[in-house]
């Protein structure tokens, strides 16, 4: 009966927020159906919302999760595999990794940006940039910041603007293939 009440569930290290929280978060994540966006779940826990988001975005989307507790990682991997087995080609390959999201390497943003990010645990305003920098331009982050559920949208990227200038300088080296002898 507890599963049907709109209240958070806690069992050992496994936490599930109240169902209405997931509803509000999914609404503000503004997920377009069957669009291959990338999604990051920080503090993925049971992987519940990762599965829901994967179902909406489709199998071509990218879904990553970060969980600090090893037991939760194992539980979520098993639960996701079970769901994928029951619903083939419904969700993408959801990757859950163990680690502390507050210690993500800084160079990660050069290779990977996410279109949607959900925070499963509260983050302070000071630590927020560590996660928000993973957002792609136009991306949306939803999660508790201090004691407020916030929606953060990346409007533009300073790195992208500065990168455009350097890209123009690199254009001249793109045409060296013309010197190759034709077959």
């Amino acid at each position: 009966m507890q599963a049907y009440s709109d209240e958070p569930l806690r069992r050992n290290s496994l936490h599930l927020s109240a169902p209405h929280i997931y509803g509000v978060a999914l609404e503000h994540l503004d997920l377009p159906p069957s669009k291959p966006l990338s999604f990051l779940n920080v503090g993925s826990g049971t992987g519940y919302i990762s599965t829901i988001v994967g179902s909406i975005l489709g199998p071509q989307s990218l879904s990553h999760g970060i969980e600090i507790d090893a037991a939760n990682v194992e539980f979520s991997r098993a639960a996701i595999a079970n769901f994928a087995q029951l619903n083939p080609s419904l969700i993408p390959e959801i990757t859950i990794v163990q680690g502390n999201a507050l210690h993500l390497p800084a160079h990660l943003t050069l290779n990977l940006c996410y279109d949607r990010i959900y925070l499963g645990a509260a983050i302070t305003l000071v630590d927020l940039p560590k996660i928000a920098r993973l957002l792609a331009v136009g991306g949306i982050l939803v999660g508790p910041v201090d004691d407020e559920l916030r929606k953060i949208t990346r409007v533009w990227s300073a790195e992208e603007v500065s990168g455009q200038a350097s890209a123009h300088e690199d254009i001249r080296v793109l045409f060296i293939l013309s010197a190759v002898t034709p077959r």
Partner: protein
Amino acid sequence: MQEKVQHPPSATLSSEFKHETISGVRFAPLLSSPTTIPKLPVPLWNRQRLPKHFPGTFRASLLTVLMCHAADHHQPQPATARNLAALVPADCWHHIFSFCGRNHFRPAPPLVAKNAAFLALVLNERAERITAEEAAAASELRQRKCEAKLQSVLVVARRLDDHLHLLLRNDDNCSGLGGERLDEIRNLSMRLRDISMGEGRGLLDVEAAGWFEDESEADNFEEEEEGEEEEEEAVEFESEEGEEAVESEEEPQEEPEEESESDVEIASDSASDSSVESEFFETTASTAFFSESDDEEEDELEEFQEAEEGAFVQDSDSDAASSDSTRLVRSPAHSFDVTDKPPAKKARRVTLEDLGSAEVWGGG
């Protein structure tokens, strides 16, 4: 159900991000330890994963390149056309594709949208600049008011300091007071001197000591000061012996002879306002007037003037008639000029017993 609030730009998050507060929640915080670094897999394309986990734009672009690779180098139409994609071996293409990120072939956002974002950013920064300028102007205005108020308080401190000095110089005034009372008055005089000489430094200590228990007292005192200037009211300090010595403006030189030796008279000066230029001088135009009929006390006054290290300057133009009534008027340079102008029309008595009460603040 939710209440959307446009959040102001955060101090820790740059203007690249737009904030919205959805609702108030209470979550368990993210743990800061252990500091295990997560290793997120960066999706790289390879032949086996071509159809899956990559967006359609990426797959469509790869398909286009590989189809071009399969075509001839020399294109029939037009005759000069050359298919450069056919020059690179397929394995090289696959290797090149593996360097492309997942969003490499994602179409760039339209320029209009990007310009709109920058325009919104510029407008936002312009609004913030206007707000900051308004705040700076308000702050400057408050600073000016505070400085003006500080000057007023300094004037009050100097005047009270002068009054207390003159009263304490007279042994008769001090004889009726107890030792503690006298020490208290002397301490008050020293604190006032510190405040006036230190341009307000130590004023907070005075407030902390409870002398300005209520800010309205100082304000009332200041207002009454201004009122006195307008009415050209003279204030007379009298000793505890109870002799009343109210002097008139028309007969300034006769009164000291009528009064007892212990009488100390301090009156305001209204005639000096004509030479006033600064606001400070205007507020100090009603400064002390000191009168002594006894020669000994007049000598003591001169000694006191010398001890003030030049703070009091005797006017050389004063004639002999001024020997009976010597007036001390504060100059714009925070010093005193001794003039011979007649005292004010009205006079009001203030005794030493009043010094410890709040009435001093209202009647100084």
